[in-house]
């Protein structure tokens, strides 16, 4: 199993190959298409993370001692970023998720999307991922 840090390093390396923002964005849009889409029954108002502009839905399940995430968004670029986050945090132990950092977003040149001023629901999404981790960790204890 890949650790969160290893996956983050892998993503940083992938993004370092791009020469300009266009390639970066195109890659992100492609990643969005690979997003493990949330099942329709979970795409409810309860699971919606309200940002100012794009909507984000996220659902988490605990399988043995690992959390798996599914999600969706109505904006493509947002979907791409969620796909990156899910690649990092899905199938990981709650404790590892709780203790992880999200600095890699900065390193792949997408910092502006995670700025709290961007109001696209992603900051809340990371918070939500960590909240799930805390909740499931309590269950495991």
């Amino acid at each position, binding site marked *: 199993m890949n650790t969160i840090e290893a996956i983050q390093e892998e993503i940083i390396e992938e993004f370092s190959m791009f020469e300009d*923002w266009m390639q970066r*964005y*195109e890659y992100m849009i492609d990643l969005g298409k690979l997003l493990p889409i949330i099942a329709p029954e979970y795409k409810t108002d309860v699971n919606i993370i309200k940002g*100012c*502009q794009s909507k984000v839905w996220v659902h988490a399940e605990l399988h043995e001692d690992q959390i798996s995430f599914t999600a969706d968004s109505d904006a*493509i670029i*947002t979907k791409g970023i969620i796909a990156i986050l899910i690649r990092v945090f899905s199938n990981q132990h709650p404790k590892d998720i709780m203790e992880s950092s999200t600095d890699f977003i900065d390193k792949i040149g997408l910092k502006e999307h995670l700025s709290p001023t961007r109001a696209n629901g992603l900051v809340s999404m990371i918070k939500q991922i960590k909240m799930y981790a805390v909740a499931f960790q309590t269950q495991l204890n």
Partner: protein
Amino acid sequence: MFDVKHIRKDFPILSREVNGNPLVYFDNAATSQTPQQVIDVIVDYYSRYNANIHRGVHRLSQEATEAYENARAIIQKHFNIAHPYEVIFTSGTTESINLIASGYSPSLKKGDELIISAMEHHSNIVPWQMLCEKTGAVLKVIPMTEQGTLEMNVYEDLLSERTQLVFVNHVSNALGTVNPIQEIIDKAHGFGAKVLLDGAQASPHIKADLQALDVDYYVTSAHKLCGPTGVGMLYGKSVLLNELPPYQGGGEMIATVTFEKTTYADLPHKFEAGTPNIAGGIAFGAALDYMNAIGFEKIATYEAELLAYATNTLTKIEGLKIYGEAPQKTAVISFNVGRIHPYDIGSILDQMGIAVRTGHHCAQPIMDFYKIPGTIRASFSFYNTFEEIDLLEVGIRKAVKMLQ
């Protein structure tokens, strides 16, 4: 002569770069940029005569008071207001509206009616909803058409002896529609109702003659008019403002204070509690001077050309739909392309240094009306160019290609 190249030199921010590209600033309906002349006034205030106004006997205080009151006089003259004391400095449009809403709170009773339009900014909806909850008054809404104009026949039906106040924006921030305000005011007065005109979007483009309009209240913000943020104005007819209770208590707004009873100062001080945004007020006046030196008629003519050019250019893009196609519009284009989320296009335009607004523009009822999550809004000012509109077109095409 109107020379945009020359005008652009007044705005230092227009020469900066964003993401390695020259800035193309099309978010003017949110905040306009500030010319050096206005920036200099702010710097000059803090460099030479920063002092509290109205109370000091010393020289600096007198100079500051004089400059601040001079700004009030500039605003008075600009909007053709009868008396300088009918101009109240506030922190902006939102505070101006809240001041009036709070002032009507004691006198409104259950069953009284307030009328707003379907195309208001949240700041001209929420304070009135709060007022209705508190007083039992009822909020009625003038509906809008698909084209983005108000249904004036319904407005007439909504008016009655129960109507106390009507609030409309002169121009819609999300659509650019110029509303038929004279008709709205005259019809409201026919029923004895008062009218508050939200001039935040119109004031940068249309010079309103408030006495000719016979409007009861008018509000706007300096930052829409090449002035600084955090300062704005409220105009009210003095007979009405005198009747309203003070908004906030504090220094400056009193005549005498004892622990038993305080008597309030006369207008405008009654509504200007505490130390105001002095530099902001002075700069507001300077901004109006700056725009008047160029001339509002010239500005309007040039912006109409920009709007026509942009409408023509952008509608060539396949799948692009413009929201708000009223015959009378200011230089605002609200649009979507196909089913692409506005946030996606906005993010990509930002990478190219093009600043547009995306989202619901604090006018969610309009987005609900069109059943869309939001729009991309490009709003133009007199310092924008035709070449910049071409860059926007290229940018949108590039974004659409990436996103489809």
